[in-house]
């Protein structure tokens, strides 16, 4: 027990700092991928074939690529080969590349989640929207998507939870986040290995489980009464 407590003295500040990086990655990637995913979903349900083809191609490519490749691509190719500099700060640059990677990957999943929400909207809603003279975009914006988002809360919540956990993959993108710190800690303090893992794992449980409960609660509260 003493060994475990001394670990907190040594690493406590860095643990909090690293986990904060994961939460920041989550926040920015969530915002960007949600916007991107919504745009892709609109493309995929639009009447315009070229936009539909683009949406389908995007989803099929990025949903089927391992996130690890995307992250490795960011650091080995975008930075290593093409010398991409979003920020002049070395670490911030990797952090921002990781946000881009996470956003590109999860946008495909948000797109599919929203599309599954569109499927829950009854045909009559779209027919009514057309009957009062709304064309595609106003109908989507005023009638279909508001209901689709409420019907897509559970799948979108699942994507958000996956995103929170996937921020650890940013380790492959050279970001100083919690899984890299956990690796260092276990390497230096193998005697406390199990407790170190349990500590970091419980930090995720504490974040992920309440979000899961919140999503279930929201999906019931916001369910469209039909």
């Amino acid at each position, binding site marked *: 027990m003493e060994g475990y407590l001394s670990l907190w003295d040594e690493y406590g500040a860095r643990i909090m700092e690293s986990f904060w990086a994961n939460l920041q990655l989550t926040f920015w990637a969530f915002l960007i991928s949600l916007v991107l995913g919504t745009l892709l979903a609109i493309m995929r349900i639009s009447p315009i074939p070229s936009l539909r083809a*683009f949406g389908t191609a995007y989803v099929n490519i990025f949903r089927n690529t*391992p996130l690890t490749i995307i992250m490795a691509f960011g650091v080995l190719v975008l930075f290593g080969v093409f010398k991409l500099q979003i920020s002049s700060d070395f670490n911030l640059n990797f952090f921002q590349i990781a946000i881009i990677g996470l956003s590109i990957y999860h946008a495909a999943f948000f797109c599919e989640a929203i599309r599954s929400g569109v499927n829950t909207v009854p045909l009559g809603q779209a027919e009514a929207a057309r009957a009062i003279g709304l064309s595609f975009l106003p109908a989507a914006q005023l009638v279909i998507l508001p209901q689709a988002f409420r019907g897509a809360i559970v799948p979108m919540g699942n994507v958000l939870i996956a995103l929170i956990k996937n921020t650890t993959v940013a380790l492959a993108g050279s970001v100083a986040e919690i899984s890299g710190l956990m690796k260092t800690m276990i390497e230096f303090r193998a005697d406390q290995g199990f407790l170190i893992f349990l500590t970091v794992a419980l930090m995720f449980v504490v974040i992920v*489980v309440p979000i899961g409960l919140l999503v279930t609660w929201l999906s019931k509260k916001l369910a469209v009464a039909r």
Partner: protein
Amino acid sequence: MSTQSVLFDAPGPKARRRILILNIIGALIFLGLIAYLIYGLYGAGQLTPEKWNVFATGSVWTNFILPGLIKTLQSAAISIVTSLIFGFIFGMGRLSHNKFLNWISTIVVEFFRAVPVLLMMLFLWIMLANSGWVQPQDSPFFAVVIGLTLYNGSVVAELIRSGVHGLPKGQREAGIAIGLTRTQSLSFIEIPQALTAMLPALISQFIVILKDSALGYIINFNELLFMSKLVGTGNSNTFQSLVIAAAIFIILNFALSKLASYVSGRLSSRGIA
């Protein structure tokens, strides 16, 4: 695609013209994007034959990419089997009326579903290498397989649970009526049906397993991505070799997802799901 007819009518002449114009604009934008990308790659010297020629030689494939692919497929295949076993056991546990079993299974399943797979892999990798239970050079492989099993097994357990809950009550009652115990009725009548109904979701989970096996790259498991990186470092064509690795993953996963939707179509035509 049932969704497409939802949002718009069969277009009239005016709308058809508008769609055509937007279609051409959209196509031009995307062709422009692709052209810009190719031009940029060309300008950066990434499309020169030297960078790609190495993939026309057999040795890159036989020494790096194929051995890596075999490791990827091997770890994924073993993880699929072990996840199914894990999921079966803990799915039964979560359906059990025994309070203790139910409680333990719930904690195990909820814990492993909430913890990032990479954390488990990193922990297992270092601890297995230190413990001496496996050969140190094998510890990445075991870490990948065990990590994938714990996470995906928990997901499978949830699938089995929701699948059994979705079955008509009469199935269990019939099982009990012919004298089976609850466990027998679960394992011989309910879970086989639940698995069939959940088959598309299961196959989608196999895609997750295949994709997540690439996490092994981070713990030095010599799978496809790891080997491709070696090719890239050796021939200074990292961009090209990662593109090849990604293409292989995309083709495999795309085929699996087509299989999932084929199976789901078959099942719905049989009236099961």
